[in-house]
């Protein structure tokens, strides 16, 4: 599986990379969609050491495709490695985002639909909902894998641009399709490029290629116990570097804000965007 993914990554990279400026978020979505016909390949890693548990590294391998200018589709393949334990595949997700309004507004809504088929060993931490917390990350992989989760996740994404800043807010509702009540969560993000105007020379280290911001996210309980009681919350600065014609590199240290949270989670991401992939399948190039 790993060999297959590496070959696919290298093959895709040989086609035509582009690198549009993207926002430095790991868990927050904005209203910006993937360009139609383009494919973004991204690997997101979250690593941390829960209290009374072993250090882990969760990876989400993401394929994001611009189906149309108002509709983006994504496939995630996920796995994790836990120290003194094992490396396991933890499931997949399929998501779609659509923009119901076709023009820019002060606040731009996006509707998000996701189907997840993951297991209890999943540690990619793409969202925190319900009463997710430190204790969910401490069990052994063999035991955790036995817990199957088939879940639907809905998000309302709200996003605004103002004077170079982006402000995004996501409200999350997630439900196991077989049982368990609806669980809720939130993410907030704000970011800005380090320089707003473009330069006259192509320079990978130009300030316009860097962006910085912050993210905060956490759980809001479930249908039966909505609120902040026994929920975990994280906050951290986030940075990215959009290398012209190359990959985008993103990093963010996240800090747990209460005893229910993991003290620190470090996130890293590498993304590569392939422009107009659809044209290769139409024989147009």
């Amino acid at each position, binding site marked *: 599986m790993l060999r297959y993914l590496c070959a696919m990554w290298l093959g895709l990279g040989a086609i035509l990379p*582009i690198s549009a400026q993207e926002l430095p978020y790991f868990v927050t979505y904005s209203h*910006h*969609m993937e*360009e139609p016909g383009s494919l973004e390949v991204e690997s997101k890693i979250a690593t941390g050491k829960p209290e009374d548990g072993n250090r882990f590294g969760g990876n989400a391998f993401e394929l994001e495709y611009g*189906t149309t200018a108002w509709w983006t589709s994504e496939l995630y393949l996920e796995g994790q490695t836990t120290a003194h334990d094992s490396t396991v595949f933890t499931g997949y997700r399929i998501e779609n985002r659509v923009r119901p309004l*076709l023009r820019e507004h002060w606040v731009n809504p996006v509707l998000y639909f996701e189907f997840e088929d993951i297991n209890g060993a999943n540690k990619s931490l793409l969202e925190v909902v319900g009463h997710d917390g430190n204790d969910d990350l401490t069990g052994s992989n063999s035991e955790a894998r036995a817990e199957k989760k088939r879940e639907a996740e809905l998000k309302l994404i709200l996003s605004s641009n103002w004077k*170079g800043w982006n402000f995004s807010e996501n409200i999350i509702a997630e439900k196991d399709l077989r049982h368990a009540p609806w669980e809720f969560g939130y993410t907030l993000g704000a970011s800005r490029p380090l320089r707003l*105007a473009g330069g*006259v020379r192509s320079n990978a280290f130009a300030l316009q290629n860097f962006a910085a911001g912050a993210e905060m996210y956490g759980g809001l309980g479930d249908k039966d116990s909505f609120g902040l009681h026994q929920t975990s919350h994280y906050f951290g600065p986030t940075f990215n570097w959009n290398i012209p014609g190359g990959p985008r590199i993103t990093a963010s240290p996240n800090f747990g804000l209460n005893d229910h949270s993991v003290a620190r989670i470090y996130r890293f991401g590498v993304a590569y965007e392939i422009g*107009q992939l659809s044209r290769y399948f139409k024989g147009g190039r």
Partner: protein
Amino acid sequence: MRAIIVAIAISFSAPLVFAASDGVWLKRVPDQDRARINPYALDENAAAAGALLYKRNCASCHAADASGQGKRPSLRTTRVQHASDGELFWLLTNGNLGHGMPSWSRLPEDQRWQLTRYLHSLPLEETK
């Protein structure tokens, strides 16, 4: 397994509909946007900066020389070249989502104005 394949197919094989640019978007531009002045209009470096932004963000669809490719329209037509700075800025900001042109509001305003300046510096295409 079949459910996985069906779900992936639904997500990734939706029809790609890209209509040729018909200029209808020009009628949608509000008057106040149409009349906006490009703050980079007198900046000699703006077109050069806009050229780099074009290469990075637009060339994969509209071709390196902006002459268009596939169903993506040329940006060297009379219609585009006669559009006001405000109209092109509005198009970059809002896109024409129903016709395949994405919104470029992710780019800061300054960069969209630089792109506008570059687009207006392009030569008109020869009549075919």
